[in-house]
């Protein structure tokens, strides 16, 4: 192929030529192009993370669900401990992935590798860069949550076809952390703040969002605090869906997560612009 042909082929992707409007493809949205970067990068490193996405659920469900579960001789919230635990772990895995992928990769793209700046040197806008990165995180969450659900099914902890909805809910839970944390990461000069997020946000939420024990065991004020925190809503939704009892409260949980994700996105658009456009 001649170089000029190739150039034409590339330009056909984006430019609609007035003389041949029917032969051109619809242009790929810009944010998809920035998402593709992350996908392309992941192609080289996916093996390790796929292994762990299969292995860690198996290990957690075996050690805590079956191991500790064998010491609990009564139902927890009306179900086996393993059934109680598994959907909570799905939600918390989504939180961890969403949070983690919005911390170091964002810092790297701004400070260490400067990928964002390379992207902005192309026709991509700051919003394309942000949406593209978040879309990639959502896709990754989708894969990890689907694998988690498969493993839960293998452990016999899926009790309703509604469980399939737990995958998009897991994605939403992850995004409720990814968007605000990306907004935060874009304001940071170094990665010191991330260990604070881990120690004072992600780990306490993992431990106190009703994953390992029902929240009604906690003192009243503690319960009130836990109910106000985001992971609880992801856990409650996933648990309802997987066990097959979804009530009106599901709307509240869903709304909480959607609002938090949207709010994170709006704030991230501002912090990204402030950081990346000089």
């Amino acid at each position, binding site marked *: 192929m001649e170089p000029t042909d190739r150039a034409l082929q590339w330009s056909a992707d984006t430019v609609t030529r007035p003389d041949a409007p029917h032969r051109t493809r619809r242009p790929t949205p810009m944010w998809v192009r920035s998402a593709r970067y992350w996908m392309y990068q992941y192609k080289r490193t996916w093996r390790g993370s796929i292994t*762990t996405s299969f292995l860690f659920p198996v*290990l957690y469900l075996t050690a805590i669900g*079956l*191991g500790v579960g064998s*010491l*609990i001789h009564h139902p927890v919230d009306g179900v086996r401990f393993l059934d109680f635990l598994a959907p909570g772990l799905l939600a918390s895995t989504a939180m961890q992935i969403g949070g983690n992928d919005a911390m170091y990769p964002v810092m790297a793209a701004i400070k260490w590798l400067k990928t964002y700046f390379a992207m902005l040197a192309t026709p991509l806008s700051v919003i394309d860069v942000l949406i593209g990165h978040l879309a990639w995180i959502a896709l990754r969450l989708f894969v990890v949550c689907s694998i988690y659900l498969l493993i839960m099914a293998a452990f016999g902890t899926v009790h309703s076809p509604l469980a399939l909805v737990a995958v998009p809910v897991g994605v939403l839970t992850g995004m409720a952390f990814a968007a605000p944390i990306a907004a935060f990461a874009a304001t940071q000069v170094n990665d010191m703040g991330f*260990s604070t997020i881990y120690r004072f946000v992600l780990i306490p939420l993992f431990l*106190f969002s009703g994953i390992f024990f029902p929240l009604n*065991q906690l003192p009243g004020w503690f319960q009130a605090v836990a109910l106000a925190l985001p992971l609880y809503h992801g856990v409650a939704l996933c648990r309802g869906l997987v066990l097959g009892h979804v009530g009106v409260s599901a709307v509240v949980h869903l709304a909480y997560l959607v609002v938090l994700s949207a709010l994170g996105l709006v704030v991230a658009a501002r912090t990204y612009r402030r950081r990346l456009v000089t």
Partner: protein
Amino acid sequence: MSATPGPSAGATLRITPVGLLGTRRAGRLVERNIRVYRRLWMYFVSGFFEPFFYLLSIGVGLGKLVHTVHVAGAVVPYATFVAPGLLASSAMNGSTLDSTFNIYFKLKIAKTYDAVLSTPMAPADIALGELTWSLMRATTYSLAFLVVMAGFGYVRSPWAVLCLPAAMSISFAFSAVGMAGTTYMRSWQDFDKVSLVLIPLFLFSGTFAPLSVYAGWIQAVVRCTPLYQGVALLRGLDLGILSWTLVGHAIYLLVAGFVGLVVATRRMTTLLLP
């Protein structure tokens, strides 16, 4: 004795694990780390909270579901059972993360050690200095955790005083082996393997449930792993259930630590003085 290392001292340093040869110069590296950490005090202080959160959630919260556990014929509340396990695993996690990520960063990214070697320091001093510093931090955390444990009433025996040196032996083993492992890491991608080792150890070493709940072959495998030694040692001391096997656990951890230190020193020498 250690002020000016001659060329012949190199060989001695390489095979002397913790000998007094390098201690004074290793102290300089500790001093350097303390000076750096003065600016990162928040990072240091926040480390106290994590095991405490675990104790509240798993010990107190999950403890309300589990009630009691049988250990060597004794019936103990779950929180009392799990507390020494959490102390052991936090000693493992803290010192491993410290000796892998931080050391890799200084070795490969920041090139701190190349700068250190332009002074009279030798690779053995670096290995020993980093190990000492990591151990100092870990001991502070372990002490704080023990005080909290005692405050919650999870300490059952005066032998629990020995939990501090026992937790130090866990930190020593994981710091040294972690440091040795780090010298083989090629990129950040290799750090996936760190969690691939830590998470199974954290979950299956008798931390959350007694070994008896697992199948026979899992028990046999777990008995050979390092964190199990730490958990069994701390639990035995904390509950006052003493036997000679505790000495065996301690020896396992110390030997692992010394082997790790020797390997780390040799590898550091290869990497830094090619």
